[in-house]
């Protein structure tokens, strides 16, 4: 009987741990990957890593305060200045503002910039919800684009040399 109780309590603890992991592991709901495709394209991929459908609310204009991508852009001059510019996460302004991603699904948006070196950071803000769990959340991450550009260029060089 005692052994049974120990097993039962261990089992309950494990179940509780797994449930809490599922509910509270907020940063695991969404995975954002930034990459650079030489010579001048930044690619942003948003993946739903949950078992459920995720609703992402997109900005149609910067002031709305929903999901957006801001680049930190350097203006070279007498004084170098960094500007925070909204680029939106929409591929098309006429697409629905509610982006529904099924489990594992990846949404891709890319930006071709003629002077990619001026783009130093990408700030991604995603306002999302999981309807099945009745949960509203947000995700925020900043990417160092110098690093990402270097990696992208290295990969391309490796590919060329390995041919």
């Amino acid at each position: 009987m005692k052994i049974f109780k120990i097993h039962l309590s261990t089992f309950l603890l494990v179940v509780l741990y797994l449930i809490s992991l599922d509910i509270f592991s907020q940063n695991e709901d969404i995975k954002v990957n930034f990459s650079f495709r030489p010579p001048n394209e930044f690619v942003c991929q948003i993946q739903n890593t949950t078992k459920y459908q995720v609703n992402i609310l997109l900005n149609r204009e910067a002031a709305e305060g929903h999901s957006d991508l801001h680049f930190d852009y350097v203006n070279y001059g007498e004084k170098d200045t960094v500007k925070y510019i909204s680029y939106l996460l929409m591929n098309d302004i006429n697409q629905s503002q509610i982006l529904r991603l099924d489990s594992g699904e990846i949404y891709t948006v890319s930006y071709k910039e003629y002077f990619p070196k001026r783009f130093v950071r990408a700030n991604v803000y995603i306002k999302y919800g999981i309807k099945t769990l009745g949960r509203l959340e947000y995700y925020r991450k900043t990417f160092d684009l110098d690093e990402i550009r270097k990696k992208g260029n290295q990969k391309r060089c490796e590919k060329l040399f390995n041919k």
Partner: protein
Amino acid sequence: MRKLTRKNLDELAKVMPILNENIQRSFIGGGAGTQEDPYTESEYDQMVASGTWNGGYVDGWGYTFSDVTITGSQGSSNNNDTSGNVSGSTYNPNEWGGIDSGFWNAGGDSGAVGDSGDWWVYGSSGDISGQVVPNTGGGGGGNVSPISGQQMINQIIWESSQSTFINQASILYGIDLSKIIFKASTDRAAYAWIGQNGEVFLGNNFFNLTSDKQLRILLHEYFHIEEDKSYSTEEKNIQTTLPQPPLEIKNYIMNVICEGDEFSYQQIMTHYTLRDPRYYSNEINAYTKERNMFTNISSEEKAELDYRIWYFTELKKLADQYYN
């Protein structure tokens, strides 16, 4: 395995194209626009074409300014401190007027703007204000933005219809759009946005709209340029919920934005960040002007404007509590 020797490379060079240093540099991502790491000419061309040129060092030219004004004089030109004719010579930026950049001769014989494609660039007051690249017109005055591909098509469409919009804005609403520089761009998904130098960029989707909607967008951007109050760019992490909207606004949010989904509606009403109240005031002002001026719009368009005015008004009220 065969050892790679110089002789092999020489042999290779006979059958393979050799890229010069400039091309190699642009291939791996180019310069940074600084004196130590200048842009290549090709990068400069592309950036001007995209409307993102804000000045910087270009290889072989020195510092290159952002804004350009071409005046149409033929056979003579001014620099910033003297006036006089320049003819029969190719401009060397290091030899002229103490300015190490800002001018570019397309390689011709004089400072003329004409059919030969050779020209000089200078401001109307005689001050050097920037550079342009060849084959981008000239002679007529105004700013130059060489463009390509879809942008070029959109720019042509814009230039052919610009005067109609300027006339409509002036006659119907008493607004002077002629001072604003408009440029086609394919950089972002938005219909239009204001650039770093106060110019208005018109996105690809702008050109798919009806002319009435286009005019509304142009005037909206005009209100931002002319009437926006300065604001802090700081964004505060504050969780708030918007109050219950009037029924017609709620219907718009539910039916048009949320496609009938109550959960998405809750998402719209929940906010995690707030900005400077003046930022929202600027939006309220632009949309209110748009709403009051355009009385003959469809009920859907009215509903959209009412929603935006309500939405930014409520965000401003919330922001007022945290910023003051």
